[in-house]
């Protein structure tokens, strides 16, 4: 029977071959295809050649032509590299791998590495072939399989083939051992729990002579140590071995096999240095053992070539990372200093990069190379300049600020736009921290604003303004300087104009009465303002600055008030609504409320702290008549960036904690005086405080302090929900609490608390889960989009429950935050609580997938489920 089948098959095979020959004698060779493709003159022509060949290749694949499969797959791989789809070759690669011919296997595995990756389903099929080939008697077949496994192993493959690799790791053949070690590395990366399996075999890799096995062995150990602290502890004892290997490498004479430009096996040296770094990190004993050898490598390595520098670089990293002697650290930094002078830009680059990493640990040692680093600001390579800039800022201190700032300012002038924003911000920070005196500080800020043009971030503008408003003695000087710049300014640079107009508005009188060292005529002033206000180059915010400033000037000038009014009233019909509003409002100050103008436009008091400054809008409108939208901003608690509120939150936290003491209840007040801008904010916060002041009188369990910390410091947007959350523990006793409200609590508190109380009581709680003796009940509070779920788990199992873990997942459009549970274990009939917060901005139906696990009687119980019976009131 089978022989008949055989005959038929043969006949079919022959027929096919004949057909093949008639149709097209042989598939064209790979090199001929490449030639054809290369001779194509246009992209379309190339596409045509490729499409024709692909069609043909598909055909042969369908016909199961095994003779030419290898050639066809090779051609397909070339086509794939050109960017054409080649996935239809995946199965053919697997067939090639299964073929007994070495050529087929070689191309098949190559194709597998190129066309499949760990995401492919075909992996099940390739795993079998790999298993076979790993057991082959030919080392190169084993080698191919190992190489492929090392490149594409997925977690599943890793598990299936881990045993084979472990066996090969103990092979007597070094060629196989080294490749098996890399495979083991890949496997433990993919499936870390397989690590222990490789431990015994790995240890013996270090006693090898063969460098290939040594380097892969060291790499494998490095990865194990990185992944697991246990392994790290285990391998501490190999430090002397590593030191010996390294010593042999650098002491041994010339060995042609591993020599690279006079350095003996740099690849291995670097790997060993890296492993030493991990082993010596925060371990003085291990560090002690390697000090000597690191010093030897650092001093003996030839540094004229890249390869020597590669080793020195690695040595420096290791020295800086372990607990090395101070002399050695200086030596390391000096190596980097030498690198900075190297003609090779690559070496300068790594030097700066490394100095940046170590500058905080050894600032004084790095300071010695300051001039070299400053030179690097002028380097031709942008990434070198960037590193140098960052390093310069790290090096600034009060002794060198003048020289450093001078260099950095000239760098800022010519720097690429992408540098200007960060550079100017950092200049401002540095000046703030180390400036020798106020005038220098002002000068520097003005230079920064000038040099960075439009790339000045807003915070620089506001800190310049704040600085000038603070420095009473220097205001005249500053305003004079600013006028000098403004009168000749190119109008395209907004930040400078903003600072200048703000200051001239505030201190214009100093300018006019001659204190400022310049003589200005009022009409000149008005002219410049007109130029700014009617220029198309100035942005709207700049014009807002200018308009307010001009208004302020109306109280400082004597002759030109009429023309100011003209300008201001012209803005009453401006297209921009903000400017229009300002125009109209300011105009009112000339007409109906003229008597108030002088008082309203008085100088602003100097700013009290930095934080208020950050929002320059507030800074600007602060002392001026607050326009309606400004008020709205302050009243609206969801407004972002309301910095002042944050201040009060932290105060509130302090007070909250204080409020836990019975003695202090009701005595809680915000400890600092509120700035006028933020008047509504403290009111609300004190409400919360007062509410909590009432807390101690009730038996309700206080929320743990850490949680409060969380909620209090979380962003402004959740502020209102936080307050509700703080209230929730008190709901049972709501009446006494509300009566205990401080009478000072304003209406704001009522609007905040009352709805919260009502709303929560109207949403019924649900029973989310009741199985295996564990019951989960949930109660809800809704505040805008945030639902706070108070989950209570009850233990009805009759035994102690430990390791209780509740996990939850919600649909994509929702965000979930889980706070720590009150406990992870429950005695029989006792309960534990956990707060879950769900942010549901789109108001979609809430569903939750949950997963529970706990141990009872020493065994693990797990369950999962879905909760879909949430009350619709939660999202409607």
């Amino acid at each position, binding site marked *: 029977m089978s022989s008949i089948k055989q005959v038929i098959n043969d006949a079919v095979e022959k027929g096919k071959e004949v057909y093949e020959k008639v149709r097209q004698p042989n598939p064209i060779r790979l*090199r001929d295809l490449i030639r054809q493709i290369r001779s194509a003159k246009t992209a379309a022509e190339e596409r045509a050649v490729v499409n024709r060949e692909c069609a043909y290749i598909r055909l042969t694949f369908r016909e199961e032509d095994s003779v030419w499969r*290898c050639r066809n797959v090779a051609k397909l*791989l070339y086509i794939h*590299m050109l*960017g054409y789809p080649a996935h239809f070759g995946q199965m053919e690669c697997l067939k090639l791998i299964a073929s007994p011919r*070495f050529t*087929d296997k*070689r191309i098949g595995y*190559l194709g597998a*590495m190129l066309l499949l*990756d760990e995401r492919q389903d075909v992996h099940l099929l390739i795993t079998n072939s790999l298993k076979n080939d790993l057991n082959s008697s030919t080392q*190169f077949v084993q080698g191919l399989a190992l*190489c492929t496994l090392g*490149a*594409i*192993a*997925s977690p599943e493959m890793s598990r299936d083939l881990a045993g084979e690799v472990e066996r090969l790791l103990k092979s007597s053949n070094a060629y196989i051992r080294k*490749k098996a070690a*890399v*495979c083991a*590395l890949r496997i433990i*990366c993919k499936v*870390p*729990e397989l690590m222990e399996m490789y431990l015994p075999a790995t240890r013996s890799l270090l006693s090898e002579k063969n*460098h*290939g096995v040594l380097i*892969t062995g060291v790499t494998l150990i490095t*990865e194990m140590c*990185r*992944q*697991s*602290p*246990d392994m790290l502890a285990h391998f501490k004892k190999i430090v002397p071995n590593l030191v010996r290997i390294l010593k042999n490498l650098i002491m041994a004479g010339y060995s042609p096999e*591993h020599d*690279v430009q006079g350095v003996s096996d740099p*690849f*291995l040296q670097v790997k060993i240095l*890296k492993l030493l770094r991990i082993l010596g990190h925060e371990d003085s004993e291990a560090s002690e053992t390697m000090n000597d050898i690191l010093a030897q490598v650092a001093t003996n390595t030839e540094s004229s070539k*890249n390869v020597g*520098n590669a080793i020195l670089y*690695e040595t420096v990293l290791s020295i800086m990372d372990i607990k090395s002697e101070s002399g050695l650290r200086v030596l390391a930094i000096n190596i980097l200093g030498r690198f900075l002078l190297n003609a090779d*830009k*690559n070496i300068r*680059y*790594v030097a700066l990069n490394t100095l940046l990493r170590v500058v905080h640990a050894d600032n004084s040692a790095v300071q010695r190379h300051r001039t070299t680093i400053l030179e690097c600001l002028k380097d*031709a*390579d942008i*990434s070198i300049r960037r590193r140098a800039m960052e390093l310069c800022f790290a090096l600034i201190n009060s002794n060198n600020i003048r020289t450093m700032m001078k260099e950095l300012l000239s760098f800022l002038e010519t720097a690429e736009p992408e540098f200007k924003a960060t550079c100017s911000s950092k200049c401002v920070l540095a000046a703030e921290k180390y400036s020798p005196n106020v005038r220098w500080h002002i000068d520097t800020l003005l230079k920064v604003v000038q040099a960075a043009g439009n790339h000045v971030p807003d915070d620089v503008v506001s800190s310049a303004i704040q600085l000038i408003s603070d420095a009473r003695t220097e205001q005249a000087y500053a305003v004079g300087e600013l006028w000098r710049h403004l009168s000749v300014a190119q109008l395209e640079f907004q930040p400078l104009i903003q600072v200048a107009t703000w200051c001239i508005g505030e201190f214009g009188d100093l300018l006019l009465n001659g204190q400022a060292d310049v003589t200005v005529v009022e009409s000149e002033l008005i002219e410049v303002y007109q130029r700014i206000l009617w220029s198309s180059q100035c942005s709207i915010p700049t014009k807002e600055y200018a308009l307010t400033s001009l208004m302020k000037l109306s109280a400082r000038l004597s002759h030109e008030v009429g023309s100011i009014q003209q300008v201001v009233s012209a803005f009453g019909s401006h297209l921009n609504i903000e400017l229009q509003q300002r125009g109209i409002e300011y105009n009112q100050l000339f007409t109906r409320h003229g008597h108030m103008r002088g008082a309203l436009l008085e100088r602003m008091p100097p700013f009290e702290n930095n934080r208020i400054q950050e929002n320059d809008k507030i800074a600007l409108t602060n002392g001026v008549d607050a326009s309606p939208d400004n008020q709205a901003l302050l009243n609206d608690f969801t407004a972002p960036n309301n910095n002042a509120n944050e201040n009060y939150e932290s105060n509130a936290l302090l007070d909250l904690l204080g409020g836990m003491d019975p003695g202090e209840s009701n005595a809680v007040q915000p400890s600092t005086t509120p700035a006028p801008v933020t008047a509504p904010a403290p009111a609300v916060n004190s409400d919360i405080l007062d509410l909590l002041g009432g807390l101690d009188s009730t038996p309700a369990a206080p929320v743990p302090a850490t949680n409060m910390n969380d909620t209090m410091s979380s962003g402004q947007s959740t502020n209102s929900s936080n307050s509700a959350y703080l209230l929730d523990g008190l709901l049972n006793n709501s009446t006494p609490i509300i009566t205990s409200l401080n009478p000072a609590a304003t209406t704001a508190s009522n609007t905040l608390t009352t709805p919260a109380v009502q709303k929560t009581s109207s949403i019924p709680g649900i029973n989310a889960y009741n199985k295996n003796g564990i019951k989960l009940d949930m109660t809800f509070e809704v505040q805008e989009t945030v639902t706070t779920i108070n989950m209570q788990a009850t233990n009805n199992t009759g035994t102690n429950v430990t390791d209780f*873990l*509740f*996990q939850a*997942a919600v649909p994509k459009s929702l965000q*979930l935050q*889980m706070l720590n549970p009150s406990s992870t274990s429950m005695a029989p009939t006792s309960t534990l609580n956990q707060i879950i917060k769900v942010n549901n901005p789109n108001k979609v139906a809430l569903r939750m*997938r949950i997963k529970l*696990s706990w141990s009872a009687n*020493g*065994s*693990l119980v*797990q369950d999962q489920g879905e909760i879909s019976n949430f009350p619709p009131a939660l999202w409607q």
Partner: protein
Amino acid sequence: MPSYASPSPDLEGETKSQHPKQAFRTSERAAFLILRRLCADEPAIVLTSGALDGLQGLEIKMQFMLLFSRQGKLRLQKWYEAHPDKVKKKITRELISTILARKPKMSSFLEWKDLKIVYKRYASLYFCCAIEQEDNELLTLEIIHRYVELLDKYFGSVCELDIIFNFEKAYFMLDELMVGGEVCETSKKNVLKAIAAQDLLQEVSYGETAYEL
């Protein structure tokens, strides 16, 4: 360094002390992995209690190596991390255009996403490797150089055309030098010996139907 071995230290600690049995730990691991797969399927789902921290333990040294011509034509690509084809193409395109736009005065390194790119030009070919932040870029230049030397020995003063027409051989060479992104042989002689032996094996395996690719 994120380490898998202690994804949630207290959980693990407790398990060990209370249930020394290996079986229990494995089952917990399994649960853990299921959970992990769950969250891989639905990326937006947030899992909780910090139990899944530190799972990203992957530390493949070299992420990929690309060879391309001055005209921007890809000549060789070796990926040691799995990516969909589309992503590979995008990365390749981006890198080729970035590197070709760099001036000769610039260093051979650039930071790209969270990787370091090390490249070097040899005649008309660019060799470009992506390595991890912690890796030694100077040594990567040496690895590239070693690869070029090997090709040079093998082809006899190699040129771009050799690599175009014998791209599979160039891949074979790379696979002998590096496996899974790690250097596995530091001796040139050994690499060339292994390649020669395999070439010979290939000829033998042709048998009667001797043909070339």
